[in-house]
């Protein structure tokens, strides 16, 4: 059994109330409360939860874009969570990658330059890094679109660009916040297959948040179910489907129906 890479302990989050509503009222409600889980090195963990369950907030806290209000996060053996917004270290030294729900591509950079952006700011833009970027672009079928600006690409192509922009600098852990939510079903299946192909190349640790139970089963080694607000872990399911998996025929695989049924029962 591989070592624990990330541990979330009794995490809590509530947002500061807006000043005009704050007068004499009780403190803001908890969005996340007493949430604990851990991720092993090299594991593909999926987290399923209804809309508004604080899934993005959870990832923002792990990525150190936002502070926690209670509890702590231990990453690679060190406590990294803080209560002070100025002490946040987003992406903790480039070891946590984050693929957000919006692709957040830089509109003035072409596909290739968006992919190279991370390497550029990290000062690691050498021939080898370039070759890796080009390999990833080919792997996800973006060859020929290197010089296109984001607004000239389809939604699926933008998602792929955002995905490999994070993969290219090879962070040991990658957070993904419903990265394929806004694309059509067919493209999504293709993107899921692409993601698994890329993941098999390096087996990074991935925390993949989604509201789609089928997606959680198709991708993950293990699926956590979040409750409604204040969210905590409602259930945990090990996905019994062996790899490599064919995402397109996931419905037909033995064990799929049973695990889908069990997870759905837990999702409120």
């Amino acid at each position, binding site marked *: 059994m591989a070592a624990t890479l990330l541990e979330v302990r009794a995490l809590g989050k509530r947002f500061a109330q807006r000043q005009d509503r704050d007068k004499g009222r009780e403190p803001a409600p908890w969005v996340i409360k007493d949430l604990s889980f851990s991720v092993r090195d090299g594991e593909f963990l999926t987290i399923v939860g209804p809309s508004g369950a604080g899934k993005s907030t959870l990832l923002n806290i792990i990525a150190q*874009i936002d502070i926690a209000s209670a509890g702590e996060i231990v990453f690679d053996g060190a406590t990294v969570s803080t209560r002070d917004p100025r002490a946040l270290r987003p*992406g903790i*030294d480039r070891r946590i990658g984050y693929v957000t729900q919006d692709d*957040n591509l*830089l509109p*003035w*950079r072409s596909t290739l330059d968006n992919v190279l952006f991370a390497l550029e*700011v*990290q000062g690691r833009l050498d021939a080898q890094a370039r070759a890796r970027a080009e390999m990833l672009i080919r792997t996800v079928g973006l060859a020929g679109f290197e010089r296109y600006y984001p607004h000239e690409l389809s939604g699926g192509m933008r998602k792929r660009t955002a995905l490999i*922009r994070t993969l290219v600098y090879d962070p040991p852990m990658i957070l993904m916040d419903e990265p394929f939510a806004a694309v059509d079903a067919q493209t999504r299946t293709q993107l899921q297959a692409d993601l698994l192909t890329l993941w098999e190349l390096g087996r990074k640790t991935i925390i993949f948040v989604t509201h789609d139970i089928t997606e959680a089963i198709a991708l993950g080694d293990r699926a956590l179910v979040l409750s409604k607000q204040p969210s905590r872990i409602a259930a945990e399911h090990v996905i019994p489907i062996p790899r490599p998996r064919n995402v397109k025929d996931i419905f037909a695989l033995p064990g799929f129906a049973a695990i889908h049924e069990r997870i759905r029962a837990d999702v409120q």
Partner: protein
Amino acid sequence: MTDIALESTAETNLRWRKWAIHGGRLALAIALILGWEYGARTLGRLFFAPPLDVLERIVTLARSGQMFTDIAATMRVSAAGFAIAAFCGVLLPFLLRRSLRATEAVEPYIMASMGIPKYALAPWLILWFGIGDLPKLVVVTLVVFYILYITTFAGIRGVDQRLISMARVIGASERVIAREIIWTSLLPFFFTGLKIAFPRAVSATIVGEFLVSTEGVGRSIEHARQISDTTGVFAGVVIAIALVLAINGIVNLIERFALRWRPVERDMEI
């Protein structure tokens, strides 16, 4: 077959529309010049200098070299004032951006100082700085500064915070974020500011030259006015217009290059 036919119709349409625009511009220019000529004939030469006389005067001024000396003098002050104002007007929002408290403390003073009638300061500025380029430079700088300060700040406030978060996670330093993300995001605002500010800078210089100067387009207009040379006044005004149009053309070219990544330009095509 149908596709090709449709495409060529669309192309013909586009070409036709472009010609319609050029034709419309030409028609407006002719109407304007005819109205001008009509004004000169009915109101007399003291009130309206005929277009041909003005053209002749401009040619004379160009041949003698006087026009270029004037333009150079006006441009020297405009460009210098503009450069100082642009530097401060862009730098200040970038510095204030880091501290909300500093911004809120400084903002009312900047807004209040905007209310100062800059041209009314001229006599006092002459007292301070003499009758060289300096008082004009101060006026031009003040006029331009606020435009660029406000547009730059609006641009900074409009930057997509999610892009900044993404860059931080990737490991970008604050310097890279300021240079790549904030600066590039606010470029559309900056160019809007430039297009308003540059004609203002030239106008401010010309007004300044009315008051104190030995050369410049404003000086030549003022000199003509003093000797009731309406043709001279008109010639100066036409030169000033040409100057502003030329600068605007250059700014437009730079803008088109700098913002070539933007999708809007294409959607807005006639």
